[in-house]
């Protein structure tokens, strides 16, 4: 039956509507925390206008791994800025602020990640917008929120600070070893997506009541929200929660093991039938009856967990991850090789589901990336295009949304309210750009509409 629901999902998704069609969003965001959430909304069909200060724009345009740019843009910047319209708008000057207010008057959602008070200083804070658009949903995403001791100190923050301050890095390390920084940006990305939970809930409230609101989101608080048992454990025991490396102290056995080929496999087999399956796979059926391992709560006790993990460890070392995966499937427990990005990008399963987005972008060309992970049977989210040079869509936005004519637009360029990219990596079009691909509307005679 579910086969029927999902038949030809990838093939037919472009023929279906999008869940947030018609929703208008304005973004003033940099790096990851600010841009990632609006990128998800745009993947779900919202019309997102991203405002950057010309000519350098978003600092995320710098984040090239070991200096690597894909077609002139950093991978992380491409990954998180999807389906947006790109405006180079200088909010430092009154003409720029005026344009922002005009756009804000028609927007449903405004997403910001500047330090508290900056938008207010630029006369485009929540109260300024609320005066002209009482229904606005205005979210500010920061390290520490809009109020409280750290906000008053005006502390700067970013992802790694969140990992450190919240105990997240501490819990993601090996005992007696220095804490390890995640290779991803969990606080930025998680704060970004949690912000959209709040925005969409606020949208539902607005649909019912007509009422907008202000949302103060701290990325640190959101990563703390994910840490489940840690807080009551500390309160009840008076001890600090301790790191345990790859072992899951709430699930037993669950750990990552070194294999015969030098690769690694993760195994989990906590439920009774799963643990029995693992013992059978290890050809140690008697362990199921062992008093140390007789039920899950008993197995979880540290002294018992140490022993069963040691047994699994010795067994796993004699096998390859592939052999263990086959046995897991056969015996009904869970196992996976510790996969690389190459494994994931070439996974037939995710390619067939369309999780691997195969994008055909007028500027970036054809490329693959991970897409949106929620499949929606009637309104499939999808990646259509990605990043643009700073201010790339200025003309389109000014003509379509603000009814400016050619002379007025030239005037706005002259006074510096709007601008385009500078000659810097990550800001400008790729070397092979033909001068018109991707352009939606142009006023310069040199450019034809694409």
């Amino acid at each position: 039956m579910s086969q029927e629901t999902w038949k030809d999902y990838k093939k037919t998704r472009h023929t279906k509507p999008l869940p947030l069609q018609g929703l208008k969003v304005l973004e003033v965001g940099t790096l990851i925390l600010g841009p990632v959430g609006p990128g998800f909304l745009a993947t779900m069909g919202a019309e997102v206008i991203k405002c950057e200060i010309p000519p350098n724009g978003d600092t995320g345009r710098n984040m090239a791994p070991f200096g690597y740019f894909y077609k002139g843009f950093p991978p992380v910047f491409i990954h998180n800025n999807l389906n947006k319209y790109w405006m180079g708008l200088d909010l430092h000057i009154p003409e720029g602020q005026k344009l922002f207010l005009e756009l804000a008057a028609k927007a449903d959602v405004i997403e910001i990640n500047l330090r508290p008070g900056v938008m207010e200083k630029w006369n485009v804070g929540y109260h300024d917008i609320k005066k002209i658009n009482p229904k606005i949903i205005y979210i500010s995403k920061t390290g520490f929120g809009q109020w409280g001791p750290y906000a008053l100190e005006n502390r700067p923050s970013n992802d790694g600070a969140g990992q450190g301050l919240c105990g997240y890095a501490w819990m993601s390390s090996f005992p007696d070893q220095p804490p390890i920084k995640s290779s991803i940006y969990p606080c930025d990305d998680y704060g970004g997506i949690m912000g959209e939970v709040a925005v969409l809930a606020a949208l539902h409230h607005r649909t019912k009541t007509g009422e907008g609101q202000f949302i103060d989101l701290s990325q640190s608080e959101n990563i703390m929200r994910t840490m489940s048992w840690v807080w009551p454990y500390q309160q009840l025991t008076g001890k600090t929660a301790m790191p345990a490396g790859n072992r899951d102290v709430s699930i037993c056995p669950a750990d990552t093991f070194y294999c015969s080929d030098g690769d690694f496999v993760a195994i989990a087999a906590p439920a009774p039938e799963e643990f029995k399956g693992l013992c059978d796979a290890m050809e140690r059926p008697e362990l199921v009856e062992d008093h140390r391992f007789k039920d899950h709560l008993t197995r979880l006790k540290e002294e018992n967990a140490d022993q069963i993990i040691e047994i699994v460890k010795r067994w796993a070392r004699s096998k390859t991850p592939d052999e263990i995966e086959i046995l897991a499937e056969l015996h009904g427990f869970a196992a996976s090789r510790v996969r690389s990005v190459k494994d994931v990008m070439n996974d037939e399963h995710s390619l067939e589901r369309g999780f691997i987005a195969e994008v055909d972008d007028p500027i970036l060309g054809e490329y693959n990336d991970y897409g949106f992970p929620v499949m929606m049977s009637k309104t499939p989210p999808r990646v259509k295009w990605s990043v643009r040079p700073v201010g790339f869509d200025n003309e389109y936005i000014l003509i379509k949304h603000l009814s400016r004519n050619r002379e007025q637009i030239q005037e706005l360029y002259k006074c510096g309210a709007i601008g385009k990219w500078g000659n810097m990596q990550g800001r400008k079009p790729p070397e092979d750009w033909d001068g018109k691909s991707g352009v939606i509307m142009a006023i310069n005679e040199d450019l034809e509409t694409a």
Partner: protein
Amino acid sequence: MEIEQNWNDWAKQNSDPKMAHVKPEALDDLVVLDLSSKSFAGCYCSSLLAEFGAQVIRIEPPEGDFIRQCTPYGIQHKGEGLNYLTEGRNKSHITLQLETPEGREILKSLVAQADILIETFLPGIMDDWGIGYEQLKEINPRLIFASITANGQFGPASGSRMPDYDNIVQAKSGIQRTTGEIMPEGKTYDECPWAVPTKAGPWIGWVQPATFMAVGILGAVHWRETRGEGQALDVSTHESYARFDDINPIWYYGSQVVSERFGNLDTGSWLYCFAPTKDGAVFLGGLRLEMWQAFADIIGKWDEWGAGEWKDLTLFTPKDQKLKWANLLYAETVKYTNKELVDKALDYGKTGRLAPITPVVAPICSPLETMEDKNWIERGVLATVNDPVYGDIVVAQAQHKMTETPIRTKWICRPVGYDNGHTYLKHLGFGPSKLKKLQDEGVI
């Protein structure tokens, strides 16, 4: 400065979680059935909706869901595992045996009154029971049917019988592989068993897909308001978590680079690392040249390193340069305590050569230090809930501060079947004698 002060005050007055109870709830018109089985992802997803006031009916088999027994070191509080203790919040807990035909008929009656159903069974099980999406949409075409599973509802691997656990999600996503200490030169796994691919945080591989699903559900709710139709939603946990791998997929696509562990440094940026100190470690962040210059200045290396001459950050982007500069940097940071470095950075923002520019310096805290941090206490994120069953318990909460419809945690958990009486009476009109009969038959 005066404006900032006013804004801070206004924001506090209007979004302090202590005043949440006087305001309306955003999702209090929605009814959610949570059928999660052996999955924290499903429980967390319904929690996110319950925090906004959705009426969540948590449905478990009569013996309770196995997830209640997944608790650190086997510790229980009043018979409850510590993980589940935090995610039963605001939900009614009932029991229902879906393996019986009568149990499934009862579920259908609840579905007729529900907006959203969350489930985590292996794909095909709900269909086999006659309560899959295609069957339930006949009863309630507005139903939003959300499945969170290891591999999702379709695609070649959807037939796998493997269960879904957090550490498997992390291994499969590609992210664990790139996180962790680099193996010291000339050493082996047996000498350094900590220099391996390393998983992160408690159950991020479960709560992250749960959060994406919450976004999908609310998107579907929005669409339903105009079109009147529900739909089926499908999340594969490892695909979802992989989505947070921001750099590597396109790097691999464009240049065939398969990223590997890089310790406490960052492939994508500089200054961005953990650095050792006299009494622990700090995070250092300075993604703009001036911020990195400011840090060099703070540790007294402005002249020696020629920081004033640096033109941009490209000098610090190649791998060998990052390693070289990290060593130079660490030799300096170990001379200070965490507090000294944090204070120096804050002072520098006021009086330093490049003020107000200053780098981000944050201590790497134990979660006990986090729990004692006045900032989080004042902002109500780590607060005690006085639960009628479990007593005073600290859980993370109030992670969104909202001026009109703030989230709140009213109670944290319920024992198995605690709400059978009221919930079945309210929704299906089952009184005590009917419940007794169902109980005797093993249906509830």
